[in-house]
């Protein structure tokens, strides 16, 4: 019976799942970044990433090579993220968390509207970052692009980790997130640390968009909406305060959705996502802080 089971098909579907999940991973890390420093889920993260993707497209359209456009877009997005934080988040810094959440929802509409206004709604495409030529190993096909996407996501997390661990600025940023009052006493510009966090998250979002668009072969203003959903779910699964957890969570989610779709017939096409979300919920009920998250002690 074991031999009759199509192991190649299973391996193929796992690989496909990892490739899909890899696309969401970078956005998930961006969500975690902002959540860790502000306790807020930035619902506009996906739309900001989409906007960055359009900027990249315009740059390529004007003749830049993919990687030149990539780096320039990341830089522009970083600045944009900082600007948004200063303009829109800072005024509500001291407001209740839900108020800030609503502000990010307002940003969602605003950025989406801006993208629709500045660029027409037709379908476009971004060139591939990596080669899509198929490579076959033991009957399982994948491409450099799949590997590259996961690689970039892991690389981004690694860079982020290194930044927070080994640089003075990173240390200050962590301190500001953990204990703003004490940090202020030590001379840390807490407010600007938040802006830094938003800038980095926006840069990560840009990377995410520029990887997603080629992976999905075409894009328009709706590009990141499903991705935000998957990134949020994957990040929660991994633990919302762990960037590494965000990557693992989204990869797992990708594999889960694919395997469910392939092997569980009664779930059917339309229930794949709800089923995956139900599984995440199940995990949370057993481990409420996610796979790699930290249980927070509650102050009375």
């Amino acid at each position: 019976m074991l031999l009759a089971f199509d192991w190649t098909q299973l391996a193929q579907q796992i690989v496909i799942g990892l490739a899909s999940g890899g696309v969401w991973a970078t956005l998930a890390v961006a969500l975690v970044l902002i959540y860790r420093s502000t306790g807020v889920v930035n619902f506009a993260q996906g739309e900001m990433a989409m906007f960055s993707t359009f900027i990249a497209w315009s740059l390529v359209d004007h003749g830049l090579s993919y990687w030149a456009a990539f780096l320039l877009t990341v830089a522009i997005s970083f600045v944009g993220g900082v600007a948004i934080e200063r303009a829109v988040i800072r005024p509500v810094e001291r407001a209740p968390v839900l108020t800030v959440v609503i502000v990010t929802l307002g940003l969602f509409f605003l950025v989406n509207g801006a993208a629709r206004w500045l660029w027409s709604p037709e379908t476009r495409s971004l060139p591939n970052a990596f080669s899509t030529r198929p490579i076959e190993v033991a009957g399982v096909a994948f491409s450099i692009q799949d590997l590259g996407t996961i690689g970039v996501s892991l690389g981004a997390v690694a860079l982020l980790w290194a930044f927070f661990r080994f640089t003075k600025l990173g240390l200050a940023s962590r301190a500001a997130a953990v204990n703003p009052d004490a940090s202020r006493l030590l001379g840390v510009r807490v407010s600007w640390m938040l802006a830094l966090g938003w800038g980095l998250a926006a840069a990560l979002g840009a990377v995410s968009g520029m990887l997603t668009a080629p992976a999905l072969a075409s894009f328009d203003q709706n590009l990141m909406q499903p991705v935000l959903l998957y990134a949020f779910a994957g990040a929660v699964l991994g633990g919302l305060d762990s960037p590494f957890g965000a990557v693992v969570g989204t990869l797992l989610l990708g594999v889960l959705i694919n395997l469910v779709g392939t092997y569980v017939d009664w779930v059917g096409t339309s229930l794949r996502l709800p089923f995956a979300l139900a599984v995440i919920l199940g995990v949370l009920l057993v481990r409420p802080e996610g796979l790699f998250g930290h249980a927070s002690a509650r102050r009375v």
Partner: protein
Amino acid sequence: MKRKIYLSLCAACALVLVTVATGASTPGLTSSEILIGGTTPLSGPASAYQSVAKGAAAYFRYVNSKGGVNKRKIKYVYKDDGYDPSKTADRTRELVQQDKVFAIFNSLGTEHNLATRAYLNALKIPQLFVASGATTFGKDSKQYPWTIGYQPNYRAEGTIYGRYIAKTSPKARIGVLYQDDDYGKDLMAGLRNGLGKKAKLIVSKQGYDVTDPDVKSQVAKLKAAKVNTLMLFATPKFAIQSFVYASNLGWRPKAYVNAVSSAANIMGLATVAAGKKQTEGALSIVFLKDPTDTVWKKDAGVKLYRSIMKKFKGGNPNDVYAVYGMSVAHTFVAALKKAGKNPTRASIMRAATSLNVKNDPFLLPGMSVGTSGSDHFPLDQAKLQRYHAGHWVSFGGLFRVR
């Protein structure tokens, strides 16, 4: 079911009596103007289809610049429903009760037009040229005589593919990637219908939901089933993905692309991303002149289209949906002319169901817009076209399908 319809029509009569009793002259009609309205997704996920309304609006402005129809200018108002059927119902009621339009025209979406069909039929308001390929808008004309569709319906399209495959590739291994809703299922039903006895040539069916991130896994499964003829009953985003993922897997089946996803810019994106060889030889149906196809560069109809789009601000001229809009507007004008010097809602409905328009400059040569008592499908012809070296080239004769 029949009893329900009968009762609903009776109840509707009461509604009509109220309207008549209030002494209504024909709403939306003055000696110098006729007001028509519809709904269209100006915002939300389907907003790319808004050019259907914009193209039509530009055509009406063109007609008005030439004096209108029987000295009346056509005022066409379209409202945003965000692709949400309950908003469609709301906006349509607004058009009827507040704006007092003469007729509802060119509203987009299957569920959306279904949401307003009973209401409009009860009030005897024409629901003209619904922008949806669902078969019901022509098939159920006995229960809903005030509703009529326009484009070749999805089932008919699937039938054309089925018949063609049965005739030319009787040993094909067919795999279908379909959107798991009425649109995808309609195409599937048509395919089976067209294949007839050869329906068992379908060896694999993979559905997807619009909330799915991608169709990688479906494409992999179709390849694993050794499919050599791939039916893409999918919307543009997923159709492009199918070409690309198949190419990534080193798989090159013969592809049939449904009309919704066959626009030249979509195929262009797929060709760039998946490679020329992947899209070469793909088949689809066509009934409009695609403005980006160089084969129509010198065509009078396309030249007219471009000049109208430019002069009357119709939007992006390379958008084939705008051509659709102009074609349906052209047909409306024909129906309006036929409805007489003092059209009524009843007379325009009679005109719309007895059309015989042969000079639509935006449809393929030889196509006609035809309706009659037993045929409530204005467009039921199409040609097959093959994708070759970056262009669609039509071949063969005009299919007529019901």
